[in-house]
């Protein structure tokens, strides 16, 4: 390289360094921001043993929400525009590391609010710390009933989490007890009499199986329960027991998660157990990821699955936009926990605007309780909180600071290689997309 070429290279490089930041600053020039920024902590799992895939999707959604808010000149409080900054805390899916991450968010990063949380164990371990430090918090994925059930109410013999003062914890994901009954109610509406439940041997599969068995048996349905281990590849021995049974089951319901559920579904279809004209196949919500589903379960047409979160056919404009952005970034449908995380940021931002403060936790909590906001998953509101503290008899304790309307549906594929966007919603009736509560294999709705 001669000296002239070297100067040209160096000159070009310096010009690029000088020009890029100028362009960057100008792009943001239409808003006059206040000096101080509002900081929201995003508590998500980004390393093992946590669910990294879930954590990354949640982080993306939270940052996407913040950049949208900032593009609209931030959070408007008392005439000032406040830039929203997101600080991420990696919970690692562990209560111990989650607690450390929350402490860091509160004490080092001085966050004004917290959103996120994927694992219930992390939610349960961090709630007291968030409450003690007066941090308004909107959880977007933990399902454990106790996350919202034990705020100021004695629940299952445990004393309330806070003895007096305000409860800062809200949840917009469903409680476990809101998800369980949906598939059972659907099966009962179809008049099933014999059901086989195949449940994974974990604290998801076993309690869910116990709950569904109790509900089905209470309605007079004969239930046979079979257990499997996660990670098993060959299910033929266990499926052979179903084949050897003198009575053909009306439905086979899988309470198995992840890839294992897809392997099991394919082997069940291959052996001609379900879906058939006689037997309904109900697989795991993992089937919603249609590319993965059809890649592993080519014989799985007409299988039904439950979906937690809003269904594509009900996406409003905001949901459609969010889904398009997510698909562009990650190449797949936006999961419910990403949508909830996106909405959680907007709920906090809206509450701060309504409260006229980003630091007065009491008024922000009051504003969250009074939320009435249409976001990507629908209309958000909270029936019970300090604004309405008396839960009527029969209302579950977890409805405290709980969004009452997370959508849980049963969907069904009815065409080979169909996208989940076009799959039929068959239950509940109010969300049905094809006018049918079950599509019999070999037919079209």
């Amino acid at each position, binding site marked *: 390289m001669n000296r002239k070429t070297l100067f040209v290279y160096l000159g070009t490089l310096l010009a690029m360094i000088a020009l890029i930041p100028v362009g960057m600053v100008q*792009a943001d020039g239409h808003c006059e921001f206040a000096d101080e920024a509002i900081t929201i902590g995003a508590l998500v799992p980004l390393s093992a*043993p946590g669910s990294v895939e879930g954590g990354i999707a949640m982080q993306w959604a939270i940052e996407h929400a913040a950049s949208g808010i900032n593009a609209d000149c931030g959070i408007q409080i008392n005439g000032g525009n406040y830039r929203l900054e997101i600080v991420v805390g990696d919970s690692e899916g*562990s209560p111990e590391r989650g607690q450390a991450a929350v402490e860091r968010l509160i004490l080092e990063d001085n966050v004004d609010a917290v959103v996120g949380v994927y694992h219930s164990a992390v939610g349960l371990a961090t709630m007291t710390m968030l409450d003690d430090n007066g941090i308004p918090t909107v959880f977007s994925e933990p399902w454990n009933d106790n996350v919202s059930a034990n705020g100021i109410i004695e629940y299952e013999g445990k004393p309330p989490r806070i003895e007096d003062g305000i409860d800062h914890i809200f949840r917009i994901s469903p409680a476990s007890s809101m998800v369980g009954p949906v598939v059972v109610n659907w099966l009962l509406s179809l008049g099933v009499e014999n059901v086989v439940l195949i449940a994974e041997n974990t604290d998801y599969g076993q309690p869910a199986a116990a709950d569904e068995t109790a509900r089905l048996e209470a309605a007079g349905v004969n239930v046979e329960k079979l257990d499997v281990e996660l990670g098993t590849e060959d299910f033929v021995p266990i499926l052979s027991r179903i084949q050897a049974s003198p009575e053909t089951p009306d439905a086979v319901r899988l309470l198995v998660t992840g890839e294992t559920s897809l392997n099991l579904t394919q082997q069940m279809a291959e052996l001609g157990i379900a879906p058939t004209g006689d037997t309904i196949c109900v697989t795991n919500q993992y089937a919603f990821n249609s590319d993965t589903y059809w890649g592993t379960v080519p014989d799985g047409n007409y299988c039904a699955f439950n979906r937690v979160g809003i269904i594509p056919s009900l996406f409003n404009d905001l949901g459609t936009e969010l889904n398009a952005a997510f698909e562009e970034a990650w190449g797949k449908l936006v999961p419910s926990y990403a949508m909830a995380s996106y909405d959680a940021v907007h709920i906090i931002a809206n509450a701060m605007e309504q409260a006229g403060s980003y630091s007065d936790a009491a008024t922000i909590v009051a504003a969250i309780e009074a939320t009435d906001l249409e976001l990507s998953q629908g209309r958000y509101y909270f029936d019970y909180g300090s604004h309405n503290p008396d839960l009527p008899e029969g209302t579950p304790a977890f409805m405290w600071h709980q969004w009452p309307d997370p959508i849980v549906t049963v969907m069904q594929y009815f065409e080979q290689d169909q996208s989940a966007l076009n799959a039929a919603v068959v239950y509940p009736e109010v969300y049905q997309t094809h006018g049918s509560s079950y599509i019999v294999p070999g037919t079209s709705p």
Partner: protein
Amino acid sequence: MAFFNRFESYIDKNIGRRRFGYIVLGLIILFFLWFPNDTSQSNYAKTVFISGFFYAIMSSSWALLAGIAGQFSFGHMAFMGIGAYVAGLIARDGIIFATLGIAISPESISAIGSIIIGTLIAGLVGLVIGWLLLRLRSAYLALFTIAFSELFRIMMLTEYDYTGGSNGLSLRPLLQITDVDAARQVEYYLMFALLIVCLLVMYWVANSPVGLFLRAMREDEDAASALGVNVVRYKILVFVFTSMIVGLAGAIFYSDVGSERIIPEQLEVLQMSLIIAYAVIGGMESLIGAAAGAFISRYLLEATREVVIALPLGLTLPDGSGAFVWETGAWRYALFGVIMVFTLRYMRNGLLYPIITWFSGRDLAMKETVSKRKSDDEYAELPEAEHE
């Protein structure tokens, strides 16, 4: 280098390396004693230190088991879990041995009582496992302890009615201090004291005749046995001893001292491999090296959660900030893996080994523990200075 040589000869002539080492160690202990009183530090920093002390106990006790006694076990986290889970279950449900007519209500058992029982049960299980392992060596021992560890984890996961499954088990808080700052201060000193006590006891064992027998067992079990070392007794002893140490540490740490609840995922092989990695980085054959390796690693893993690179010349990003912020997530563990590979390739006795050796003035680690044993011929060919 010249400065270091002058410094070294000054220390050798005037103070002595070992004495200088004690002075430095004393200063480090003084720093840890002073640290919680530094008002500029938040409770978060103390939390990180508390976690560091816990992992220091875990790694140093594993170094005693694997580095000194040669029992390459993967069951350490499981024994820790046994201590924590038993303490939690006993504090919640009491003790019921219906067949023996024993029923003790949870109200009559204090948090300390439950921790002691958890520790004893961990030791008891260590006794059984130690006895089962008597005939197993090297890879078979590792495989057995992995299987035991996984078995225990799956039990905790599937017996969710009792253990809370993946939502975890909340232990009875050991301390009842309502003031958060005061509580964190006490938790800090408690965990630090536990680390010091554990290290002192482990050093006492390692430097006693028992330690000599353990080393002999590590070098050559058959030869040690032929020379009169009761291999059976010492193998069981070291398992019971280290199981009780980690059981105690787990029961205390998860009694709301370091964390509010324990989950089965904490017992995964991945977590166990971190304990081993800390010990390898610090120095497998040095208890204090393993402890320091664990503490420094935990601190760095915490400190690198977020990497901030300030932009020069007053430049700003589109959002107006003057720095790139990188949420490292799992990548910091990848970096940690690189350090581990480097350590194993170039500094097999740990990154801290040269420092510890310098202070002690002698070569502490047996080379063959972490590398191929030299044949007698190869050994004879080595220069005199490298003979141990």
